[in-house]
């Protein structure tokens, strides 16, 4: 724990671990009958843990390890993707990082603060955006929500004005400030929410599904803004999402969690390797033919004269292409890089097979 | 018909899942029953035959009120908030194109709910009340049966009123105002505050012929054996008459509303 004395507010010196987790655990006691869901709240998380830990269960109190010993460090100014399937423990982790939940074990420090002990102090240094849950005031003009933040966070006037101006400009909010929030579109509301989370200059921004349900243009706007925020302000960003394009476009580093454990922590490229993923060769033939059978390639899909063949990402495509060109009436072909979605899906499959 | 039975069963099951809420409701009904019973005792202590009831009958009336409060939805709180919400959001258009009839559908749901509330929230407070107070509960099973018929008719009348209230949301900005008026009228004219015969002069006479008397006053009088023979038939006819009239009004309003939805394209 090197950050003990680090000042959370405006300290410019980049510490190694701005966010630090050391063997963090969260164990829930779940009382549940054999039949039916766990109910609201952390139900999603609990289900994941239950599947892993206990399997078929009786109608007794049992323990669910929603987060099962996670350790990582995020330096100041990094933008990290935090992904995993529903119930993997993502939001439990975020809730511990924000101080909402008290961890059952391990050590946790965010900007030098122990979140669960000093939740309200930490609140001044973090911003949180929930994609599916607005914190804006439904019936009031957007600007009113910002004015509330101004006073609730006791943001100095000048700083508030500057931050608001900047957000309004970059997030294109000028026209929306006087519109009641209920009249905003989903994309507009999301931009409004992001601005609301940033008015107090948080050093860390947690984003939970920030692009969910948005159209392509809104997604692009949100991503541009986040990239800019991270680059110019050095805001540390932790992003959970189902839309892996978010990760591909924004994050150099990604962490994959499942069943409460960290499966992967590293760069995007490394994720591809770890996934032992395959590349795909898309072949257009002159006519419809039965799937091409060749050693070192695996037919994936056939659609009329077009066929998809998977081959190991570590191999070169050249020999395979030569063989096909020799044996089949070839019109066109292209090589597709593995998309991250497939890689991660494969990781989950591999892991649960173990 | 089979469809509506299934819908009613669904309504029953849905409320049956709220176990803690049911327990909490029973608790509240019991507490209010105790408080009201004592105030009635103070009143009947001075006027022993007030409204034609003796004290055990008056106390039975109190506990019946608690038992039927949720069942006959005297304070609202059934399907109507959901229907109003569907009208407000326009989802009701989907319901109107369904093969099932809107009014019958919701009636089935509400009957299912009422059946659960009668069992789940009606019986326990009554039993608890009978431990502490001397009640005038009939021994004759036929009286209980007659009572159940009256309660069923009461639920239908209550439904018909609330259906009208909910449909008003087609024309009013939000149904809150109409629902509120209905709540006030229901509480006052059902006899929830005091038995209607205790209301002074003309107020009591007017209250007795309004539809809300079907919700508590009539079922209670049936259980207390105040209506027998032809008098019982007349009481049923009164309830059924209001039920038919109000359901018919609901149908008219529903068809007007349907035309409106169709014209607006949903």
């Amino acid at each position, binding site marked *: 724990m090197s950050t*003990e004395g680090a000042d*959370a*507010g405006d300290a410019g010196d980049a510490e190694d671990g701005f966010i630090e987790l050391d063997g963090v655990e969260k164990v*829930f*006691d779940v009382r549940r009958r054999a039949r039916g869901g766990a109910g*609201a*709240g*952390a*139900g999603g998380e609990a289900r994941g843990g239950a599947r892993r830990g206990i399997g078929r269960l009786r109608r007794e109190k049992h323990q669910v390890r929603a987060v099962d010993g996670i350790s990582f460090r995020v330096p100041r100014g990094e933008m990290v993707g935090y992904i995993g399937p529903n119930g993997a423990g993502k939001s439990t982790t975020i809730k511990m990082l*924000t*101080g909402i939940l*008290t961890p*059952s074990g391990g050590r946790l420090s965010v900007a*030098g*603060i*122990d979140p*669960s*002990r*000093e*939740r*309200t*102090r930490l*609140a001044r240094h973090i911003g*949180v955006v929930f994609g599916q*849950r607005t914190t804006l*005031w*439904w019936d009031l003009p957007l600007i009113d929500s910002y004015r509330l933040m101004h*006073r*609730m966070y006791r943001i100095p006037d000048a700083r508030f004005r500057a931050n608001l101006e900047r957000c309004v400009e970059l997030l294109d909010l000028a026209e929306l400030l006087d519109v009641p929030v209920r009249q905003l579109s989903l994309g507009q509301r999301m931009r409004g929410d992001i601005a609301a989370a940033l008015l107090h200059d948080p050093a860390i921004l947690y984003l939970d599904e920030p692009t969910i349900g948005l159209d392509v243009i809104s997604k692009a706007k949100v991503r541009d803004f986040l990239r800019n925020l991270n680059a110019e302000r050095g805001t540390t960003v932790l992003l959970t999402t189902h839309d892996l394009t978010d990760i591909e476009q924004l994050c150099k580093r990604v962490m994959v969690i499942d069943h409460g454990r960290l499966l992967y922590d590293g760069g995007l490229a490394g994720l591809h390797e770890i996934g032992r993923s395959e590349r795909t060769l898309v072949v257009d033939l002159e006519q419809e033919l039965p799937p091409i059978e060749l050693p070192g390639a695996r037919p994936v899909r056939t659609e009329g004269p077009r066929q998809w063949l998977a081959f190991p990402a570590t191999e070169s495509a050249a020999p395979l292409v030569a063989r096909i060109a020799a044996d089949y009436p070839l019109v066109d072909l292209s090589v597709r890089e593995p998309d991250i979605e497939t890689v991660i899906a494969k990781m989950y499959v591999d892991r649960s097979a173990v | 018909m089979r469809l509506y039975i299934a819908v009613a069963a669904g309504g029953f099951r849905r409320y049956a899942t*709220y176990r*803690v809420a049911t*327990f*909490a*409701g029973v*608790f*509240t009904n019991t*507490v*209010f029953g*105790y*408080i009201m019973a*004592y*105030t009635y*005792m*103070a*009143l009947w202590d*001075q*006027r022993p035959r007030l409204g034609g009831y003796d004290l055990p009958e008056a106390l039975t009336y109190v506990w019946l009120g608690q038992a039927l409060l949720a069942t006959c939805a005297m304070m609202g709180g059934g399907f109507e908030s959901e229907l109003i919400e569907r009208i407000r959001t326009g989802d009701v258009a989907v319901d109107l194109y369904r093969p099932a009839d809107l009014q019958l559908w919701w009636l089935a749901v509400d009957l299912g709910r009422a059946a659960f509330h009668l069992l789940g929230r009606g019986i326990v407070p009554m039993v608890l009340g009978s431990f502490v107070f001397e009640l005038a509960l009939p021994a004759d099973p036929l009286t209980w049966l007659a009572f159940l018929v009256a309660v069923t008719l009461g639920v239908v009348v209550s439904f018909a009123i609330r259906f009208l209230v909910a449909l008003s949301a087609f024309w009013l*900005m939000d149904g*809150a*105002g109409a629902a*509120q*008026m209905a*709540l*006030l009228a229901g*509480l*006052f004219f059902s006899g929830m*505050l*005091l038995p209607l015969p205790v*209301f*002074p002069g003309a107020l009591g006479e007017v209250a007795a012929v309004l539809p809300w008397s079907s919700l508590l006053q009539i079922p209670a009088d049936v259980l207390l054996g105040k209506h027998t023979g032809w008098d019982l038939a007349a009481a049923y006819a009164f309830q059924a008459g209001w039920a038919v009239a109000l359901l018919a009004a609901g149908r008219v309003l529903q068809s007007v509303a349907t035309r409106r939805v169709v014209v607006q394209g949903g």
Partner: protein
Amino acid sequence: MESRAEGASAETSADLPERWIPRSSRRAAVRDGLRAYGLIVAMWVRSTMTYRASFVMTALGNFAVTAFDFVTILLMFAHVDSLGGYALPEIAFLYGTSATAFGLADLLLGPMGRLGSRVRDGTLDTLLLRPVPVLAQVAADRFALRRVGRLGQGVLVLVYSLAALDLDWTPVRVLMLPMMVISGAVIFGAVFVAGAAFQFWAQDASEVQNSFTYGGQTLLQYPPTVFSKDLVRGVTFVVPLAFVNWMPALYVLGREDPLGLPDAVAFLPPLVAVVCCALAGLAWRAGLRAYRSTGS
């Protein structure tokens, strides 16, 4: 400057359990809480006022529904001259003090009864992310201005009773009046907070709370002579609602206490209110701690 001071305190408080809070910062938390409460209430009032017509209607409805309690009493008095040995103005005094105290608590803290639904749908979490006390935010959550209707009818009945009562208004009796209303509101407020805290464990049980709040104020609208002694003992010594108005009001009305307690009991409400607040605060803290360790 400020952030440096915070950094220093972080070092010292890092090893202390959360419960340990220095007195000065506790006072600051109360101040922060009240300020946040005011800010959030103002937002809700403005939201309400965007639907002005709806507000007027619901406020009137709230007035009418709650006034039914008094209408019931009036209907009773159409047949009798006294109830439990109390005349109408005296019962109106009990009703007025109970309804006014409760109306204040209900207006200011009533929405806390909805905490369970916030726990259930997970929106409580957003309140835990703000740098102000959660209690203040929950108390202000969905502040419903229409509840002035209830308060209004309570005040009206109280005013009527003061005009109709034939009492010798000594200074002590006059002072009893604000003391009763304020202490009563605080006692009811404590019940609201304790009830909300209970909902951290049982989210669907908000109606149990209604038994103590709405049920309690209905009880207090009638003279204690109406009820059995056991019930009166219960609301004196177990859930101390009798201190909201019965004990002090009996003194003001010059009536005998049915439990035969000494006169001094009439002056206890402020003390009882403070004790209730402390207990409610403990319950709240325990509830919040339980929530933060279970997340549901």
